């Protein structure tokens, strides 16, 4: 199953343990995760559900392509990392 991990810097603000879900897209993976850890959503996504300006989502080593709808496809072994963009300071 695809896995989702977060920068340790986010754990300072809210618990966000690694997790794995059966998901075909990043949007599905996030939906599954946020249903269990709803407080994390606002740290990663803005009010419209897009990735925040200064957050980076890496999918199997590459930057997320669709930062607005999160439609990037996942494989069964995909690894998704949420990290902070240095543009944010």
């Amino acid at each position, binding site marked *: 199953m695809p896995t989702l991990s977060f920068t340790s*810097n*986010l754990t300072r*603000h*809210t618990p966000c343990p690694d997790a794995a879900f059966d998901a075909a897209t990043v949007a599905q993976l996030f939906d599954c995760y946020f249903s269990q850890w709803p*407080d994390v959503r*606002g*740290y*990663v996504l*803005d*009010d*419209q559900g*897009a990735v*925040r300006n*200064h*957050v980076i989502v890496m999918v199997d080593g590459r930057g997320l392509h669709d930062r607005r709808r999160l439609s990037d496809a996942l494989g069964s072994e995909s690894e998704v990392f949420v990290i*902070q*963009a240095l543009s*944010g*300071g």
Partner: protein
Amino acid sequence: MGDRLLVGTHKGLFRIVRAGEGRWEIERSWFLGDPVSMILALPGSGRIHAALDLGHFGVKMQRSRDDGNNWIEASVPAFPDKPDGLEDRDPFRGLEIPWSTQKIWSLAAGMPGELWCGVIPGGLFRSTDGGDSWTLIRALWDDPRRRQWMGGGFDFAGIHSILVDPRDPAHVTVGVSVGGVWTSDDSGDHWELIGEGLRSAYMPPDQAADPLTQDPHRIVRCPAHPDRLWMQHHNGVFISDDGGRRWRELEDVHPSGFGFAVAVHPTDPDTAWFVPAQKDEQRIPVDGRLVVTRTRNGGERFEILDTGLPQAHAYDLVYRHALDVDDQGERLAFGSTTGSLWISEDQGDAWQTVSHHLPPILCVQFQA
């Protein structure tokens, strides 16, 4: 009398207390490392609301019900889904206006349980449950004139001043940078653009008197005389005696009519304080001398107050929420972009330095 002061900074929230013999010191801190863009302490309740502006992870609200001993993360004012295909762009630069809270820029209390919150990019939110949930005031956001607002110091417009009428909490007036002064008599269901007499010299001459183009940096209301409003405008100092419908510019304000902050005495509507700066291209104290100006007669004359303030090579700028007066009108505090904090116990006649080493100061508020 205000014996305690909350100070929101670029790197945390601090409480300053009067330790004795008129000496003020830092008592404690919260949220170290995180920008605290706005604070609201509700008098006598132990309730404090703090807005955090996390660089990467967005805007957050924290709330304490026990005077800061414990905090919980609270609901954040959030925009509804933007309709597909809707064009909503800055009128002059063409930037797409985000339907997403970027900064919490003002908080105010209304009737019991009611809170108001102004944000960048120009949304006004209301809570009727003490901040458990927030609703965007659609009547203002959907007003077609809102799309003529523009950023003032930020990419997008913001609501920085919220004045709730103590005689009638349904009467709410807000200040927008840049978008003028708006008022509602029915808790936000309907809005009227007001501001006759304001002047925006930064606009083409034929638009300078348009209320929609005005850049009020900060508006305050005298609690005991709610029709008296004071404004530090981008172009100078203005006063109103009818709740903001008509304004009169006060000229010959020295050393400068430019600045961001203003405070008004809680019971004497003719007494107000400002922290001037060199207009507007430089935004540093005039000649490197930091001063506060005070009028005691409704703006007929301004005194320059400098006792205890640096008078050479001072480059402190005071943001719009970084000056406050206590509920007795005797003590004042202001903090600067260079992390300096001063307090006066005699209406500004003399100032005591609390610190020169705080992070850049964004807002201050006496805690009653």
